[in-house]
């Protein structure tokens, strides 16, 4: 926005963070920081004026007798200047505020135009297309992305996207990694209702109103649910019990989640025992509410029979900012999908729960809970396998109801984090997501929730957006002014890119981002904590 073009470094356009949230204001993080600094100065000037008033009240002599070097004259001059400081700083802050509001209005206006056009097109398309195809439009986008990724990564033939289309997209990487494409997808996702209503013969003006009101029958959630039902009948996207095992620990203990004898077990209803000796939990038994035993007593010191010993991990130092948090989100190299850190003393712990992104993009035949079945189930508002796995891991780690929890997540992990917080399954004290599909799930009032998104990452656009949203969106175009890597699929969605962006967020003076970092300090304290890494598997 303000940087020189063509500079690939963090200071260039790719390094510009745009912040939106808290009303209609949209601006770069620098502008918000300047606004806050000017308001601070305005407030300080008021305080200074009060101090000057006290000086006057102690006596500065009658004004007619003042000479230029006299206390009275000097204090009067200072008072006038301080008044001017208050007025000018206020005017400048107002100007920035107005600019941010204008920018926000412009963006909202463009969104409205785009959405209106999209709604009309969707309605017209709906008249022509089969209802079922439209009903599953949004989740099909997930499947398409999944198939694209699986074919790119594994050389498999995609089951949803035709090979020629996959090849074409691969040859034109800018097509999918493009803010314009992202905006178009967002408009499509938000106009599914109009399309279906069009197909049902509802006139456009009525369909548009119904779509705007968000009361349409086939938004992302209900269409995803419809797809789940249809796909499961065809043997795809099937849910299953999950088993969670500890694969790494800084305390030397290991165990398997969901075993009442080990983890307190309140809320856990084991339905069988897996080959590896872990207790199994059927899908309907979560959420796993109720107390678990405290750390140190919750897990046996030796691994469960049939499980691999947990890797010994170093006690984690307290994370200091967004980059540290992003770096600790587990990837496949960590051997697990969930990392849980505990800080504070055992009687008053605080927890950081790091949840990874989608691992398996195929719609069938996977033992991986972080799969397409969980993606679609999460969009459908169902308790996905990955969601249940996170609950089990938290319980096994010793997270008690009421303990402060800060979820930090990437991609599908972000969907899970939003569900955890929105459903009240954790006592969230904040939330940080990277590249998570947007969601209209409500959050507790006043909860600091930050969603970091790349403007050229298509995944966040796949979820529905709420009109009243308290999340603070921090956006950056990852590949602005630089070439999109052709070898990677959806490169703007990869965690490595978000880790780079997290470093920029750490450097941002934006007051709400600074406040989030300060809050993190109070959550984790200054002494090293403990960590465990958990691996979940589907058990059929």
């Amino acid at each position, binding site marked *: 926005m303000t940087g020189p073009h063509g500079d690939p470094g963090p200071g260039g356009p790719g390094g510009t963070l745009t912040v939106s949230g808290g009303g209609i204001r949209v601006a770069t993080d620098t502008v918000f920081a*300047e606004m806050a600094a000017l308001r601070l100065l305005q407030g300080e000037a008021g305080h200074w004026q009060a101090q000057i008033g006290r000086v006057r009240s102690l006596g500065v002599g*009658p004004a007619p007798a003042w000479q230029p070097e*006299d206390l009275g004259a000097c204090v009067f001059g200072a008072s006038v*200047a301080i008044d001017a*400081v208050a007025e000018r700083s206020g005017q400048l802050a107002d100007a920035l505020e107005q600019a941010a509001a204008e920018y926000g209005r412009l963006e909202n206006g463009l969104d409205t135009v785009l959405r209106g056009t999209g709604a009309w097109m969707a309605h017209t398309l709906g008249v022509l297309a089969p209802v079922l195809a439209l009903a599953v439009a949004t989740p099909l986008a997930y499947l398409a992305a999944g198939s694209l990724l699986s074919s790119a990564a594994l050389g498999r033939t995609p089951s949803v996207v035709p090979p020629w289309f996959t090849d074409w997209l691969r040859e034109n990487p800018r097509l999918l990694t493009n803010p314009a494409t992202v905006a178009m997808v967002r408009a499509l996702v938000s106009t599914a209702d109009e399309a279906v209503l069009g197909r049902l013969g509802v006139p456009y003006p009525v369909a548009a109103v119904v779509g705007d009101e968000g009361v349409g029958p086939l938004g992302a959630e209900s269409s995803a649910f419809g797809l789940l039902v249809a796909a499961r009948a065809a043997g795809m996207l099937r849910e299953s019990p999950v088993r969670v095992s500890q694969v790494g620990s800084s305390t030397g203990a290991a165990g398997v989640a969901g075993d009442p004898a080990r983890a307190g077990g309140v809320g856990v209803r084991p339905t069988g025992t897996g080959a590896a000796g872990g207790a199994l939990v059927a899908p309907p038994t979560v959420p796993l509410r109720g107390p678990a035993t405290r750390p140190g007593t919750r897990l046996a010191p030796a691994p469960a029979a049939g499980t691999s010993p947990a890797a010994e991990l170093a006690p984690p130092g307290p994370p200091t900012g967004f980059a540290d948090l992003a770096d600790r989100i587990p990837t496949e190299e960590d051997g697990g999908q969930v990392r849980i850190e505990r800080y504070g003393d055992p009687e008053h712990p605080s927890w950081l729960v790091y949840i990874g992104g989608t691992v398996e993009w195929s719609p069938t035949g996977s033992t991986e809970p972080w799969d397409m079945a969980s993606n679609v189930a999460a969009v459908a508002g169902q308790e996905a396998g990955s969601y249940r796995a996170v609950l089990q891991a938290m319980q096994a780690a010793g997270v008690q109801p009421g303990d402060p929890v800060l979820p930090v997540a990437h991609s599908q992990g972000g969907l899970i984090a939003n569900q955890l917080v929105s459903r009240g399954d954790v006592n969230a004290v904040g939330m940080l997501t990277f590249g998570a599909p947007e969601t209209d799930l409500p959050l507790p009032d006043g909860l600091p929730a930050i969603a970091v998104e790349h403007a050229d990452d298509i995944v966040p656009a796949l979820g529905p957006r709420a009109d009243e949203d308290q999340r603070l969106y921090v956006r950056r175009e990852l590949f602005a002014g630089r070439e999109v890597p052709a070898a990677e699929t959806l490169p703007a969605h990869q965690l490595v890119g978000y880790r780079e962006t997290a470093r920029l967020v750490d450097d941002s003076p934006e007051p709400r981002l600074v406040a989030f970092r300060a809050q993190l300090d109070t959550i984790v304290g200054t002494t090293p904590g403990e960590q465990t890494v958990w691996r979940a598997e589907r058990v059929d």
Partner: protein
Amino acid sequence: MESAGGSILPEVDGGADAETLARLREQRRLLRGVRDAVEASGRRLAGQDAGPDWRSPAQRAYGTGLGDLGATLHGAWRALDDALWAVDAAIDRVKAAL
């Protein structure tokens, strides 16, 4: 008691005493606090220079506004520093008269 302008100590009534000195010292403490705060704010403001990337007319106007604000802050600082000098001088005179 005489002073440079004759008006710095209007309530002294010619009789310098400990109460006058205490009042002057309180004024000095207050003025010093405000001056130092103004100085700190001025440094902070200077640190948020918009930089050369701000090229549009609106951005240049904003930059000019920031410059004016900095100059006004500097004016306030000078006035406060002068006031401090005047109080210090008055304190010296009161002490000399004791």
